[in-house]
């Protein structure tokens, strides 16, 4: 048994170099160009060699069996080398071009699609949801599954105007990249924290709890002799930050929790500067297991985007070109008071010119 003195700490991650395919090592920093041979298959040409990447989907919430299976495929086709992408896909790194099709076939036989490159919908960046987080207003893994089932054709093809990045986050903490995605699905609470006055004073620091509220809705108070807090109904916008610091203020409300849909964000600097995602649909009730209203709302937006955008326009770029009025018009989504910002810099979104379309 390891004794205390043997205990290793602060060693940091293993150096990546030991995991690099020899061709990658040789051509490290010396790549000349790449080509996308077909959806999900990239060819990177370096000074002294070529590496083929086959990008396979993953549910991200996976098991050791799944990983072992993938490792096995890597051994069989990729000299044992693979990596994961920033969007949770798996990339097999092949030296041998001839291995591409057999690998794809074996993946397909096991229900794993290949794709996500170029003008495709890639994997959905997402979060824990009901699977592991106490904050969630919805599930994440389930939503991703039904959304990608529905949009499946766009993962394995490259027929979109440009990349389309979807993200899901199960509460306003937005652990997914919801605030900068082409289309984002965000779990929302919509009712006041249910304060447990009997335990709050013990569980939570009152000043921290009061300070946590972005809108100063929380005030200290005393109820039946107990120190606790109260929430100003008119000021609370259900963000859940109080709950993050104080377990006695849960927001979960099966009847009113649900989903909002956001559009037009991006991260890359290509053509236009990075943009935040903007509100499209303020609320859709949770309807598990397959959330049909959510998938059809997203499909509607995707299809109208595909039909109307110019080549290489991201969703936000397309909307900026046609104007938001037209976006609401084309998608049939209702514009409501909720769409008009009312937080800190709300005024900067008011239309301060008369340049408009009619």
């Amino acid at each position, binding site marked *: 048994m*390891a004794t205390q003195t043997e*205990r290793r700490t602060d*060693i*940091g*991650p*293993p*150096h*990546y170099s030991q*995991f690099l395919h020899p061709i990658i090592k040789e051509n*490290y920093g010396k790549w000349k*160009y*790449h080509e996308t041979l077909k959806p999900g298959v990239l060819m*990177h040409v370096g000074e002294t060699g070529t590496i083929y*990447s086959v990008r396979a*989907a993953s*549910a*991200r919430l*996976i*098991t050791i*069996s799944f*990983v*072992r299976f993938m*490792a096995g495929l890597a*051994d069989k086709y990729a000299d*044992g*080398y*693979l*990596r*994961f992408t*920033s969007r949770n896909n*798996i990339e097999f790194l092949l030296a041998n071009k001839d291995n591409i099709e057999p690998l794809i076939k074996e993946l397909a036989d096991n*229900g794993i699609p290949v794709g996500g490159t170029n003008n495709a919908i890639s994997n959905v960046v*997402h979060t824990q949801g009901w*699977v592991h*987080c*106490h904050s969630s207003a919805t*599930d994440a893994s*389930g939503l991703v*599954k*039904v959304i*990608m089932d529905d949009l499946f054709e766009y993962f394995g093809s490259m027929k979109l105007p440009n990349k389309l990045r979807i993200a899901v986050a199960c509460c*306003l903490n*937005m*652990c*997914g990249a919801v*605030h*900068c995605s082409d289309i984002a699905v965000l779990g929302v609470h919509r009712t006041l924290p249910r304060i447990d006055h009997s335990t709050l004073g013990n569980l939570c620091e009152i000043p921290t709890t009061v300070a*946590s509220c972005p809108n100063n809705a929380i005030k200290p108070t005393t109820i039946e002799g107990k120190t606790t807090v109260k929430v100003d109904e008119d000021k609370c916008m259900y*963000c859940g*930050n109080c709950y993050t610091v104080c*377990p006695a203020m849960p927001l979960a*409300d*099966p009847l009113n929790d649900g989903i909002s849909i956001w559009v037009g964000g991006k*991260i*890359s*600097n*290509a053509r236009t500067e*990075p943009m935040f995602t903007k509100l499209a649909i303020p609320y859709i009730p949770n309807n598990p297991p*397959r959330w049909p209203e959510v998938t059809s709302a997203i499909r509607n937006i995707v299809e109208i985007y595909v039909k109307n955008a110019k080549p*290489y326009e991201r969703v936000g770029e397309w909307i900026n070109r046609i104007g938001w009025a037209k976006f609401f018009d084309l998608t049939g989504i209702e514009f409501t008071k909720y769409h008009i910002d009312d937080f800190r810099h709300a005024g900067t979104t008011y239309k301060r010119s008369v340049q408009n379309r009619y």
Partner: protein
Amino acid sequence: MSDDLKIPLLDELEKGPWPSFVKDLKTLAPKKPMVRDLLRQLEKSYQDKRGYWKHGGLVGVLGYGGGVIGRYSALPDEFPGVSHFHTIRVHQPSGWFYTSEALNELMDIWDAHGSGLLNMHGSTGDLVFLGTVTDELEPTFRDLTARDWDLGGSGSDLRTPSCCVGPARCENACYDTLELVDNLAHRFQDELHRPMFNYKFKIKAAGCPNDCVAAIARSDFGIIGIWKDNIQVDQAAVAEYVDSGFNVKEFVVDNCPTGCMSLEGKELKIDDSNCVKCMHCINLMSKALSVGKERGAALVMGAKAPIVEGALLGSVIIPFMEIEEPFEEMHDLLERIFEFWDEYGKARERIGECIERIGLASFLEQIELEPLPQMVTQPRDNPYIFYEEYYEEE
């Protein structure tokens, strides 16, 4: 055992062409009671439309303040398998590169000590081991470190830095994202494992302005590759694009945000003094165009999700910096930033919020950087100037 796993709602998620986590988890359920109860509790969540997790508690491994997220079921009697269901964040290698051997070793460790469920990867970048009990934390840690793996960050510490594939497989990389991130992770081990900041601090390194790791949106400190000189043009290759029927004018030239390109016959002209390094043309003509030779990175700070003061994108604090080993300039800068934050920040205030509160100009002054017009979209438009120099009566 497994025949009493009645999860009709979740079963619906086995349908359809996208990989099904339910199908995957079900294969493990017979062997792992934790997985079985996870599915059962999740089924209940699907029925009731709400989560059943308690607010996380403080658990961890000896001497570390971060790397483990405590998690307990709110219904431990109904679902004893998940009464404890903690998360261990394992620090991924730069660029998420693995060998099958390394993965199999990791899986063996996780099989031995936990549920066998995981995320590859978490949103911050960690290899996330989902679901174990408090007693298994230390043994898991021991086995991990024995195989050269360490934990990632959580809580108010330096979070696990991550980077794009960079020079390992991308012709656009303007600096060595993988080495930088590995270096920073090792240099700041203490900050990573022992939360002593005001709040979390995330580092992300992208090799070029395409920002494939979302540095500008999801990191308090983002390093985004860029070049200073001219785009490298291979005119012969340009001509090939033209000949191939690819519409260089419409797709490339007309989409340049500054209009600094023109196509004359089959020749592409670029007024690089007006190029804002957006990458669009290079992206579309990988064979003909490449990033310049004078490479480095722009540093952006302060990105974050909405809580508390609203979401922020990173903002430029250094428009261009050379990124070369041993990365001392970067270490120094980070130390000055941590010092600043320590002095000026408030608890649970992200550094981006702190900079907004203090003001970018004061922040720059504190961390000893020069103000430059590249740091703003425009100079101030309000006349509320805090003049600091004035004349005194002689």
